[in-house]
């Protein structure tokens, strides 16, 4: 094999209380897609942040094209041809795509040039367009970032990296937020980049994807390299075992449901989205105690608005919502929560966590004002702390301490914090939107088991997911949402990937095949 474009030798990185990377060796060949796998908190993002100059390694060397280099900051990394698209995007929503590109440019060179004189927006826009067209990354340079879908935003990030001359592209869990179609598109973009001689490091938790797209696979566990292999020489199950260190059951085990009374009843619900468009157009369904009701659908077909309306975060335009027998249509979020609802929100950074808060405070986000966490108006730090210690242990959240800030946890561990908080409360209805996004296979197995346990305790579960495997594996009944409507509701036994796939694409079935609710 030719000289690696990027070679890491003995990289170690320590954080207070954690050894995030432990003597890691890693090689990236030119024109290669190298997948990086590992449990939540294994140190994948940290390793890449070291390469991208966000962190300075405590030990070890970085070689680019065979030469040892010191990378002080991202500008340094970019100057050496390394670009990174983060797990959580870093674009400015109120600016256009072009302005976002220039923003990076201005910080790299602006000071030295004194003025932004060489930044002609029209020229930048043209270059962006040309770059995009070449790799099938269609983006509108004039569009405001806040108006873009997640998939589009990600493309902007990729183009931004390319625009600044990246030869090595690091993609940190790019597919976690994409629809299956968008993921396909991303893969063809990646292939097109490889054909150009660029190299890609690809982080993901989806083993299927790895087997499809990667040339080589390196697995990290507890900050150490477990091994490097190739797709042709391995299987999903073997990769899962390598990551987690034990056999993982990829299939959910559950008995038949014993549905009870209705815990959630939605009647002809109508909701507008932020742009005042009708996002939910007359949706009706019922979730019973002791069943998992799955809503499948391509992201952006109203699922987000549905969940926000149910939980009181978005006003309801028309129709009725009943929870546990009580009308909650126009109640405030607190009142809805208090009827016995838990909500795992779709966006963990926007709604789910206060990143600057330590874990113990995040773990009482809805209960801070109730005993035992508060007596009258006084917080009880000891109780808050003990609650955190218990949940962190129970849900295997990898963190140095309960006072660690949520923002410094790995993405998957942040998700576990939210799930732990929501599942640990005394509830009758669980509304879970993409509950396992960004989790490793072991954690997904665990969370799925917990959701089934909740069901068996008699909790009604509304599961929203764009992962068909998750919907099919967990649900007792399945609805498909398309363009703000529910196209069909069916018992899980009658659902197949093909049938759901067609419905998700908006193909309506003949009326007689739609199962009655």
């Amino acid at each position: 094999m030719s000289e690696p474009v990027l070679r890491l030798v003995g990289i170690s990185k320590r954080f207070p209380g954690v050894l995030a990377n432990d003597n890691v060796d890693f090689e990236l060949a030119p024109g290669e897609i190298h997948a990086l796998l590992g449990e939540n908190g294994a140190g994948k993002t940290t390793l890449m942040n070291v390469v991208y100059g966000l962190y300075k390694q405590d030990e070890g060397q970085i070689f680019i094209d065979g030469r040892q280099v010191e990378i002080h900051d991202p500008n340094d990394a970019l100057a050496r041809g390394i670009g990174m698209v983060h797990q959580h995007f870093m674009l400015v929503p109120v600016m256009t795509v072009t302005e976002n590109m220039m923003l990076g440019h201005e910080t790299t060179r602006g000071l030295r040039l004194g003025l932004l004189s060489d930044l002609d927006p029209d020229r930048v826009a043209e270059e962006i367009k040309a770059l995009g067209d070449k790799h099938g990354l269609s983006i509108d340079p004039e569009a405001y970032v806040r108006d873009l879908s997640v998939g589009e935003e990600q493309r902007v990030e990729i183009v931004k990296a390319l625009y600044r001359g990246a030869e090595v592209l690091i993609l940190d869990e790019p597919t976690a937020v994409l629809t299956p179609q968008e993921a396909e598109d991303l893969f063809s973009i990646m292939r097109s980049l490889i054909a150009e001689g660029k190299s890609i490091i690809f982080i993901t938790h989806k083993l299927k994807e790895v087997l499809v797209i990667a040339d080589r696979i390196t697995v990290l566990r507890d900050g150490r390299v477990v091994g490097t292999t190739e797709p042709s020489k391995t299987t999903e199950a073997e990769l899962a075992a390598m990551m987690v260190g034990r056999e993982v059951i990829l299939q959910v085990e559950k008995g038949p449901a014993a549905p009870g009374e209705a815990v959630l009843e939605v009647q002809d619900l109508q909701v507008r989205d932020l742009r005042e468009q009708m996002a939910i157009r007359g949706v009706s369904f019922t979730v019973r105690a002791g069943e998992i009701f799955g809503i499948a659908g391509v992201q952006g077909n109203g699922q987000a608005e549905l969940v926000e309306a149910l939980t009181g975060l978005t006003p309801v335009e028309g129709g009725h919502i009943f929870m546990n027998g009580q009308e909650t249509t126009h109640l405030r979020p607190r009142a809805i929560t208090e009827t016995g609802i838990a909500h795992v929100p779709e966006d963990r950074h926007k709604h789910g966590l206060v990143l600057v808060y330590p874990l113990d405070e995040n773990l009482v986000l809805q209960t801070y004002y109730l005993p035992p966490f508060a007596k009258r108006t006084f917080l009880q730090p000891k109780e808050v702390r003990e609650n955190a210690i218990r949940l962190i242990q129970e849900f295997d959240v990898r963190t140095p301490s309960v006072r660690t800030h949520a923002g410094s946890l790995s993405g998957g561990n942040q998700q576990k914090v939210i799930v732990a908080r929501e599942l640990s409360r005394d509830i009758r209805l669980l509304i879970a939107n993409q509950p396992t996004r960004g989790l490793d296979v072991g954690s997904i197995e665990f969370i799925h088991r917990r959701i089934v346990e909740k069901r068996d305790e008699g909790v009604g579960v509304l599961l929203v997911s764009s992962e068909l495997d998750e919907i099919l594996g967990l649900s007792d009944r399945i609805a498909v949402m398309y363009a703000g409507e529910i196209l069909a509701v069916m018992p899980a036994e009658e659902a197949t990937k093909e049938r759901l796939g067609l419905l998700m694409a908006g193909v309506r079935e003949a009326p007689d095949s739609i199962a009655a609710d």
Partner: protein
Amino acid sequence: MATSEARRSSRRRALLGRLAIPLLAIFTALIVASLAMVLSGTDPIKAYLALAEGAFGSQVARVETLIKATPFLLAGLAIALAFRGGLFNIGVEGQLFVGSAVTVFIGYSVELPAAIHIPLALLGGMIGGAVWAGIPGYLKARNGAHEVITTIMFNFIALRIISWAIGVGGPLRAPRTVVPETPAVFESARLPILIPDSRLHAGVIIAVIAAFVVYWLLWRTVTGFELRTVGANPNAARYAGINVEFNIVRTMALSGALAGLSGGIQVLGLAPYTFTTGFNVGLGFDSIAVAVLGSIHPFGVALAALLFGAMDAGARLMQLRTKVPIDVVTIVQGLILAFVAADQIIRRLYRIRTETEEGPVSLSQSWGGGS
């Protein structure tokens, strides 16, 4: 899980990290100002020594430092509290005016036993400040009007109303004076003097207590949890069932109450125990620097207030000894604010990486029009 020993040492490191930027900012500001002094032909070391002596060199100096630090502390707390709630209260200046006016009015219009009169007058001032801050808070909660704009406008409104009230024929105007001022408050409303024959009034103690109360409020009460959550992530706050709109009003009112207290203590604590338009001008703005330098933490604000108080107290002696104009102190204070606010400059200068696990509270967030 880390051992308690490791936890303690990591906490110590975190504290050190938090102190580093402010200390380096002060240091850098002093250096930059000393360059200016060298250029104008004075010896900066001599000037700074005189400044220090004027601030700490004698009992009179120390008392003066404390007296000057007191309003900084209270007004700085007002700003810090609002910051924690995600609000940039530029209106402390106006709230302080309104608070002083109410306090002085209660102070001179009735005569009561001191044990009632002082608390009543201060409480009145706090309510005045709270209302004056609460209205912009309500406008933000209700209509999304940005508090930076509205509080600035409320500063002007307060200034104008009060100039009229203490102007010729105004309702608060003292009889038979040539300058625009109110009557002096009764003896019974004046704050007790702590050290006989000095100017050190009990306001210092009130301010220190206020710092503890704010700390306790922020981190030990349900109200504080809500306030901080709204400030740190309004979306998560809504998700958590917190009434964001109500909290905006409440945070502004609490902030305004502290501002009002800051003003009230000035009129009840210092001769001539009256209120004039020239009274404490700019304090509300300087306190932004105090709050920011103090890392918007009550105890940090206390240290910063002490520093600013010392600089103000020592400036006179510095001018006397070295002919360096008092304004240099203002320059230093301005530079400190600039360096702390634009901490990237300091980080670059001293090669401090931004990878601490402590997410710093972003001062710019309230500009983004959070809610």
